[in-house]
């Protein structure tokens, strides 16, 4: 299922459609969001290098880690850095976001990273940031109809320096840009009001949330009983994803996460009962529509009184006639709409209880039934 996410990001958006956007959110209870982010990043890089993805370049906007971290990360995962000038670029919003250093001394940054990254010295000006990102992206892919992807390290950092509406503005503008293939970002949900989280969920087409493995165990004192459960929370977690599909439906999926030194592993969930679904139970009615078959059957039913008004003399069946005459006349079929072999007519064989009763008596209204 994490593969599904990566595949969606890899395939990108269609012509005229907004780019698919992924929100990864985590919280203090299960702080593995960054591992998920790294996983998605390396997967996308692999796809770009292999040429399988729609995008041909990647711009990483680094807020919470320095560019050298990303270089090391890619090296560790076996991705070739030497040729990476043409497909990846890192926008450094980590070193000096507010422009406090007037002159930049590049002793801190390693040689490789400086060729891959450029500085952004004013993160408060989101318009400038937007144009920087687009510029870098276009620089990677050159002229033509190619597209590039964007990864934003930590949106929580972005909103520290700018208002919610401007952050939402830049994200939606990036999404709707013609040359952006896909975009994803990380968010720590407990740093914000619910409003900001819901804004980001509104803007994205996939929402992945990392949750603690044992919900109940979080926040409790470390006791001998729940020690094992708490320990599980340190390494494991639950991964819920909500996809907004093109046909307007929402796909909900769930997996388990295991965090190890080498990286993060996703395993499918064992028990299906744990899936929490918002159940919207509307008031349903019984189906009063008939299918084609049922309609045909209904048309075949002979109703009483139907033949009246045709000019023939009206006779009312009074149930007194003998059996011999009964068989010649068509009788009422029961209300069942089941296919019948002999031209769909059912039979009711009715014997009157006694001959004393007058026809059309009030006691037995069935006498009036005239077929």
């Amino acid at each position: 299922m994490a593969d599904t996410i990566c595949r969606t990001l890899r395939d990108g958006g269609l012509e005229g459609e907004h780019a698919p956007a992924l929100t990864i959110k985590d919280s203090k209870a299960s702080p593995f969001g960054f591992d998920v982010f790294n996983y998605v990043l390396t997967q996308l890089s692999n796809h770009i290098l292999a040429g399988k993805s729609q995008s041909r370049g990647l711009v990483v906007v680094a807020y919470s880690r320095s560019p050298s971290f990303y270089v090391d990360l890619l090296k560790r995962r076996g991705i070739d850095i030497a040729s990476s000038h043409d497909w990846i670029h890192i926008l450094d919003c980590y070193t000096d976001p507010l422009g406090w250093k007037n002159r930049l001394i590049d002793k801190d940054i390693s040689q490789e990273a400086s060729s891959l990254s450029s500085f952004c010295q004013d993160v408060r000006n989101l318009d400038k940031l937007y144009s920087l990102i687009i510029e870098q992206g276009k620089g990677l892919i050159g002229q033509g109809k190619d597209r590039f992807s964007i990864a934003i390290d930590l949106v929580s950092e972005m909103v520290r320096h700018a208002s919610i509406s401007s952050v939402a503005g830049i994200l939606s503008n990036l999404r709707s840009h013609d040359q952006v293939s896909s975009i994803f970002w990380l968010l720590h949900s407990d740093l914000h009001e619910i409003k900001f989280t819901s804004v980001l969920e509104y803007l994205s087409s996939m929402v992945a949330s990392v949750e603690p493995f044992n919900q109940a165990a979080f926040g409790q004192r470390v006791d001998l009983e729940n020690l094992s459960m708490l320990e599980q929370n340190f390494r494991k977690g639950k991964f819920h994803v909500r996809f907004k599909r093109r046909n307007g439906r929402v796909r909900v999926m769930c997996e388990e996460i295991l965090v190890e030194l080498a990286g993060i592993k996703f395993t499918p969930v064992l028990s299906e009962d744990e899936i929490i679904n918002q159940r919207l139970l509307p008031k349903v009615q019984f189906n009063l529509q008939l299918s084609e078959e049922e309609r045909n059957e209904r048309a075949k039913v002979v109703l009483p009184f139907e033949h009246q008004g045709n000019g023939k003399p009206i006779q009312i069946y009074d149930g007194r006639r003998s059996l011999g005459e009964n068989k010649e006349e068509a009788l009422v079929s029961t209300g069942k709409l089941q296919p019948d072999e002999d031209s769909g007519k059912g039979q009711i064989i009715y014997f009157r209880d006694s001959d004393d009763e007058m026809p059309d008596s009030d006691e037995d209204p069935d006498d009036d039934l005239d077929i």
Partner: protein
Amino acid sequence: MKAAQTPHKKEVPCVFGRPPQLPITKIIRLSAALLARHRRCSTPTAALSLPPRVCSLRPESLSCRLSTIYSWHFTGKTKLCSVDAAMATTKPRLSSFSRNLSAVSSSQTPGVKCGPNGTMFVSSGIADLDKILGGGFPLGSLVMVMEDAEAPHHMLLLRNFMSQGLVHGQPLLYASPSKDPRGFLGTLPSPASLKHDKSRDRESEQEKGLRIAWQYKKYMGENQPNFDSHRDNKQDYCNEFDLRKPLERHYFTRQRVNCVGIQDSKNLAALQEHCASFLAQHQRNDGSCALAGRIAIQSLCAPQCEHSNMDWEMLSFIKSLKGMVRSSNAVVVITFPPSLLSLSSTKRWQHMADTLLSVAAIPDEDKELAKLLSGYQDMVGLLNVHKVARLNTQVPLILEATTFSIKLQKRRFLVLECLNQAPVDGSSGSSYGTSGSCSGSSKAGTLDF
């Protein structure tokens, strides 16, 4: 004033010949009394004829008033004919005892229909929705649609609404938070080709022939219930839209469509200006309306707009818009995502609306839901009707069902259907009590939205 005695059954009672000094109100009262008598008899038909003097006065207002006072409708058009012709035109027409809201098609403007209580309707672009709402969107009302953050179904409603207006030549003002609002016009659907319309006609005609098992035929002779079909009018009023065919470009010329982007402006003053000038062109004067206007505002509180955190500004904008539209021949449709507003703001916005709808997404590949509802495979989403506008009347519209499923027939045509329970599978072993939705399903969940 002479009123003919109620004749026996087949003949038509009529009112004829009156001194010209009688005011119109008296005529109306008299005819109301006459009809009240006729309700008790079996042939509720009346021909109302007036001398030519009266006919010179505005006949539309008279017939409108007549139809609003008592909502039995005059089948077809009200014929205001002279006295001599009255007796000649005695055609026994059995009007059905039905509250038919398309009472009098007195307004000649296409796309506007007269309704009860002096209201006029425009179509929403979706025939099923018009039926549910009792005729369409009333002119002068504010319609709000609550979006679901997870599904774009409100765009379907907006598209049909806008297309319907353009097809009828009604001016349109469209506001959206995207950078290029005009680009959205390229996604508007076009009316479906005639072939599909005809097949739907035939289907509904077949259903009209009732088979009644009762001995009425020997009493009534050849009088068969005759359902007048207003179908010739109906096709014009609400079109069937093919979502795969884009609307032809000549429909959205500059005069008819004005697009406004609300993302970049600091506050809502510019949008308010636009709406005010648009509505000023459609002021409602006494009498028939010239042309109805439509305003469509998409995602009013979208997060990328700067005004999205100014709660009170947005509320006062909506309030002023509602006041302006009340006195004009226009309909305003606003969509907004309630998840982005605070709870109290959402409640206030909901109270502002005259008609309140909401759309919801449905989970994909949900086996529980597939078992519960029939037709789950074709469903795209759900539509809820929370409030229906009732102008000029105190009587509410009580719907049998408020939740409908949105389906795309042949992936082209939008239909709304009632939710039907799937047939309970007897072999599964679940008893009636647990499988029915009324008693709640085995998983705990909210029973309504």
